[in-house]
């Protein structure tokens, strides 16, 4: 499995994602990929990491969506490559139109960082098959603009298609319907505000994030096996 972790100016969770992927995805090759790259051919998983790309100036993710690498991400997403956007990565994916909705400022107007209980509302995805249905997991959040919003029609669509993957047990930011993470209709692009890459060992306080990476690996193996046969 070949993993790309994108690096924009101002990304700051890129190394955390590299380390988490290396530690949890056995046998995977993990590379940091610069924002100017325009070809992502050959990668099986693209991680858009957290941070403050371009300082989050203007609006978080609003400038990053114009980086050359984002056209390559769009193409890869279309081709069915797994794309995981975490925190600022989620914001970038919504700005780029790869996921519906938008992330607004937290309802309390303050940055919030703490462990957060998430409910796995859909465990039949490539990202969450390792979790039990409706299991509550412990994953940290760290954001100032994580208040997910979409219009009623989009929300109805998200529900109808089972695109809501994670919800907060205790809503920290005012997100509509407690949404913490959603995926696209094809199920290969996931965006989430919480940080699974920070929950990969007991020493860090939780290793509930490990099963997300394991799920992706399993999905990739299954797909790979299918292709070979």
């Amino acid at each position: 499995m070949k993993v790309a972790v994108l690096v924009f100016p101002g990304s700051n969770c890129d190394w955390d994602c590299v380390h988490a992927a290396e530690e949890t995805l056995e046998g995977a090759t993990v590379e940091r990929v610069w924002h100017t790259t325009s070809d992502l051919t050959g990668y099986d998983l693209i991680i858009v990491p957290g941070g403050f790309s371009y300082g989050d100036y203007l609006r978080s993710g609003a400038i990053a969506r114009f980086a050359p690498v984002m056209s390559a991400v769009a193409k890869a997403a279309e081709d069915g490559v797994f794309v995981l956007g975490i925190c600022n990565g989620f914001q970038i994916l919504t700005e780029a139109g790869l996921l519906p909705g938008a992330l607004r400022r937290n309802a309390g107007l303050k940055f919030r960082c703490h462990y957060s209980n998430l409910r796995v509302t859909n465990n039949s995805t490539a990202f969450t098959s390792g979790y039990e249905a409706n299991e509550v997991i412990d994953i940290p959040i760290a954001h100032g603009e994580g208040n997910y919003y979409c219009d009623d029609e989009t929300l109805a669509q998200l529900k109808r298609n089972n695109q809501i993957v994670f919800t907060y047990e205790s809503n920290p930011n005012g997100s509509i319907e407690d949404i913490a993470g959603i995926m696209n209709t094809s199920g290969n692009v996931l965006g989430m505000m919480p940080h699974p890459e920070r929950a990969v060992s007991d020493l860090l306080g939780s290793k509930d994030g490990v099963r997300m990476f394991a799920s992706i690996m399993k999905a990739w193996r299954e797909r790979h096996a299918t292709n070979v046969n």
Partner: protein
Amino acid sequence: MQPTLTKNETTSSLEQGKANMLKEPTPQQIADGRIYATMGVTDAEYAHICELLGRKPNYTEIGVFSVMWSEHCAYKNSKPLLKRFPVTGDRVLVGPGEGAGIVDIGDGQAVCFKIESHNHPSAIEPFQGAATGVGGIIRDIFSMGARPVALLNSLRFGQLTDERVRYLFEHVVSGIAGYGNCIGIPTVGGEVMFDSSYEGNPLVNAMCVGLIDHKDIQRGVASGIGNPVYYVGPPTGRDGIHGATFASEELTEESEAKRPAVQVGDPFMEKLVMESCLELIQSGIVIGIQDMGAAGLTCSSAEMASKAGNGLELHLDEVPQRERGMTPYEMMLSESQERMLFVIEEHNEAIAMEIFDRWGVICRKVGRVTDDGRLRLTYGGEEVADMPVRGLVDECPVYEKPSQVPAYYTANEAIDTTSYPEVVDVNEALLKVLGSPTVASKEWVYRQYDSMVRASTAVAPGSDAAVVMVRGTRKALAMTTDCNGRYAYLDPFMGGRIAVAEAARNIVCSGAEPLAITDNLNFGNPEKPENFWQMEQAVDGMAEACRHLSTPVIGGNVSLYNENAKGAIYPTPVVGMVGLVHDVDHITQQGFKQEGDIVLLLGTTQAELGGSEFQTVIHGVTEGRPPVVNLDTELNLQHAVLRVIQAGQVQSAHDLAEGGIAVALTESAISGSIGVTADWHIEGLRKDVALFSESQSRVLLSVRPQHVEAVLESCAQYDVPVQRLGVVGGDRIQLRVNGEAAIDVARIEAERVWKDAIPCLMQ
């Protein structure tokens, strides 16, 4: 990115700058009008400058001298005191004098750390003041070649009942959060205390900790005659001019007018500058590198030249500028943020430029190293200043200020802090103390900080010390900041001693061996003999404790002139300490862990209420003498605690500090989300005094029943008195004293009071 001027604009800017220079006072006018005095230069100092130059300084030169000779840069009032600190040790690789000190942690690795104040800017413009304080200290760390891995901050404010204080508190915290969160360095710890003494003059001390391999250690030296000097970072503007001078005087009503002396931070830019500079350093071509902190281009260039014993020539037209018509004076004194200066050999220029281009960071050659020992500035091809480097850096007069014992100190000796009327309802007293903002949970603060980015934080804010893991090893770093200003006010010597001892105790309780300290000396106006006495005493107390506990001072900062309308702030010598956790298995936290664990109290309790939280909250005074710490007793305690932790016999460890045993027991229960039942035998003390006494060298441990004997034995070996206090379990916090009911409160109730206090005040 901030716009820089185009070529045509630069030409017209130069003409405009020259025109602006013509409006500057002439050397004669500076002398006649004593214009130097407005820059904080005394008559005697001015005369000395004239002597060094052999003529009267022009406007640029007097500006440069004034900042170089400010307290902030020259330590002219504190230097004799700083010499009293122990600064060497087996593990010390870099001591005071560089951007930050460095201590060995084995395996070719080292830890680099420093603390610095941004008190005055934060009093005027809290968000930017605090933010740029964080930015500045981060630059100090990466300019040494270290990768910043953690931030801490030590804050002091007036009472939260005051509207202005709430404003300052709110914006200082968001300024720290805004900078640290964006740049991606976790803010893992620190402390916040509230006392009217800090009203109008809050303290904002920021500490940064970095990791470095020995081979990568950098120095801020401009060596190699003829080598080019480069400027890195955003263009220079007119912000922060005379920031260092501003930091070296008292805040007054006119200070508000000095708001332009407060710089504006851009953490995104600093992230790019940091990554590109670390990459430059890793490339191995750097000869010298230093950040432009206080006094910007002036201080960095003069210090780099001085450390190499060389001179430096700067071509100011080459300095990237974002405002038109800037004069040499303005460029030299600007404190625009996120800028660095470095020296490489000319033939390596392409390597450097490739790195900065890739990161989108401006890098421009602005001068060269010379052999004449002078700092020479040119502008539009003309020489506009010529000063001896040694004169700027080393010739600033050092003052031995008169010192005098303050009347309050003498008067306090007679005060008996055990004679207050007895507080019978100790439960109610406990809840009051828990709800005091100094003791209450700081979750409202640290929840705004990203404490987990870099995915290495093993102990986040809220325990005795924060712990950050060293990736790829079994090691970790424990870190804390400590100082109780009330103790330091009542007895600066003892307060200084306690600050070091308590920091070390916190480090030990988290499972680490104390390594070294960085200090931030926050005091009032040193020209007042009583204030200078406080400083002298505090430094002596700290120095003694550092020697005893083998934790040398590897760097720090001095912030004087912290005063408000009522006088000087409480002397607040903040200690930032880092310790080494030898194995991650040793990491220990304050919260109780498991039902049935036995709670032990190590140390001796005496009637010591002077400067205590109980005394302030319940009796409304801060008086008498503070607790006494005996350094032999302290060292024994720390050795015993560290040994039993390292032997794997400890479930939780918590230092007894503000609020004494009553608060410590409650905090361990709250943090562990489990109750405790204890019965304490204590001779000769009234119940309320015993429960809230802040006697030093005490630690609360919880251990598994099967480990009790071994722990008692280790304590006996180190001569540490230990008492079996009770058992972890249940949902109440119960503490009987000599068989009599004393504390009995539902854990949830205590937690509610403790957690809600600050959010309620801030609503």
